[in-house]
């Protein structure tokens, strides 16, 4: 699903990623672990080009999205991302947070179609070979209705439908992060990226967020998770990547990595955190 080929990223003179090659298959749950400063987060952020790679390719569904000429916004719709700091839009209510992107994208699609149809109609007046119009079978109100219904369905799923009209500043960290997750889900992504989703949470709220991620995993969502929760990585992941100094040092199934690490650096790291 995502092919990463010789991915490199430099910040000034500092080379953070030193040539990563890997493939993330559909349905896989990949956990990325490693010491801080090893480039885990940068790697994850390169996968949806929040950081533009210095060189290398990221092939998502056959398209190299690391290419600057590609319209990255279209591909990002299919890649959900959840941040360490939640990053809910502070100026919008919970429901608007969830609705913003799907609503905007569908409405602007509708608008573009209408504009194109207008020009086709104009053209059809003057030429004999008539071009067909784009089909428009939804109205603005219908789209709004649908997007809202979907957002409410997702909110119900996490049991926060009563918070629909609250502002993010009134919510707890765990609630914010769960809303951030369903905000990403509202776009029906094909893959979800989690950037240390529980690191900014109070300990008692970690559980509710991990439970939701686990549910998604069980539903077959492809996901890439940067995490410090080794227990969670072990339980959910189908494959664990250990990164150090900008390289994937070791990758294996969670059982193998946690019980039987081969690389000395993996051993050292795990002995510190487990």
């Amino acid at each position, binding site marked *: 699903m995502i092919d990463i080929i010789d991915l490199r990223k430099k910040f000034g003179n500092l080379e953070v990623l030193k040539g990563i090659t890997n493939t993330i298959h559909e349905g896989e749950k990949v956990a990325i672990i490693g010491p801080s400063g090893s480039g885990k987060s940068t790697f994850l952020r390169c996968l949806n080009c*929040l950081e*533009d790679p210095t060189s290398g390719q990221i092939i998502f569904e056959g398209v190299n999205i690391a290419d600057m000429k590609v319209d990255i916004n279209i591909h990002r719709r299919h890649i*959900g991302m959840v941040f360490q700091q939640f990053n809910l839009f*502070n*100026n919008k209510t919970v429901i608007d947070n969830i609705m913003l992107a799907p609503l*905007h994208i569908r409405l602007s699609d509708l608008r573009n179609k209408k504009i194109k149809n207008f020009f086709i109609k104009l053209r059809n007046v003057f030429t004999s070979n008539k071009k067909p119009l784009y089909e428009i079978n939804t109205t603005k109100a219908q789209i709004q209705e649908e997007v809202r219904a979907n957002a409410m369905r997702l909110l119900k799923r996490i049991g926060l439908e009563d918070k629909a009209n609250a502002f993010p500043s009134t919510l707890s960290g765990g609630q914010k992060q769960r809303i*951030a997750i369903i*905000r*990403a889900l509202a776009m029906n992504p094909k893959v979800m990226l989690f950037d240390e989703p529980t690191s900014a949470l109070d300990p008692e709220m970690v559980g509710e967020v991990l439970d939701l991620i686990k549910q998604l995993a069980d539903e077959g969502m492809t996901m890439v998770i940067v995490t410090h929760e080794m227990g969670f990585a072990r339980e959910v992941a189908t494959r664990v990547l250990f990164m150090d100094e900008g390289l994937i040092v070791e990758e294996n199934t969670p059982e193998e990595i946690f019980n039987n690490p081969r690389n000395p650096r993996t051993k050292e790291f795990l002995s510190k955190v487990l």
Partner: protein
Amino acid sequence: MGNFDKKIEIFWKMFYEYNGYTKVLTGLQNTLYIATVGLAIGIVIGTIIAIIAVIPKYKRLPRILDSICKFYVGLFRGTPVVVQLLVFYYVIFPLLGVKMPSVNVCVLVFGLNSGAYVSEIMRSGIMSVDPGQLEAARAVGLSFGVSMMKVVVPQAVKNILPTLGNEFIALIKETSVVSFVGAADLYVAFNYIGTNSYEFMVPYLVMALIYIVLVMAIALLVKIMERSLRKSDRHN
């Protein structure tokens, strides 16, 4: 001060019986019109410049746009607004062959002038918004422009509202120079009353009073707006 009553009487006569108040009302209307529309133009220009300033500069186009904006800001912050008024009214528009009422010239010049200031205010506002907000908006597939307009700028405006209020107050007071190009503002109205009655003290005091009342009203308005925008941080 013995004849202060007399002075007030003269002023009142000019103001009321000889229709001085119509001039004052036109003046007030022009002052408010120039300042309000000027600020609106300024906010639009300033927001555009500020967004251009924060676009990542990988490509050539944003870099060129940014240097044009920097030149514009340097030009309009580097010259007094009176000079800009005179240059536009007596040099640029005649050269272009454009005939425009002086009030509209003033609106344009004050808009361009405050655009230069608002751009810096807006830029500081945008930078005060957590970069994660932009990242989150980009990550769900919104373009840079849409993310800015729907997520970042509304939060930036909330942060800079007091400063924008300040800019509006400054603008209201700066409009007192529009008589240089023959636009009728408050100063022109009260000066008319003064010259016709040979009595300047009371008209000028009343003018000062009107400015103070205007500024206080704006300050109050800004406060009300701030309170309504702040509902997103209220804990309920």
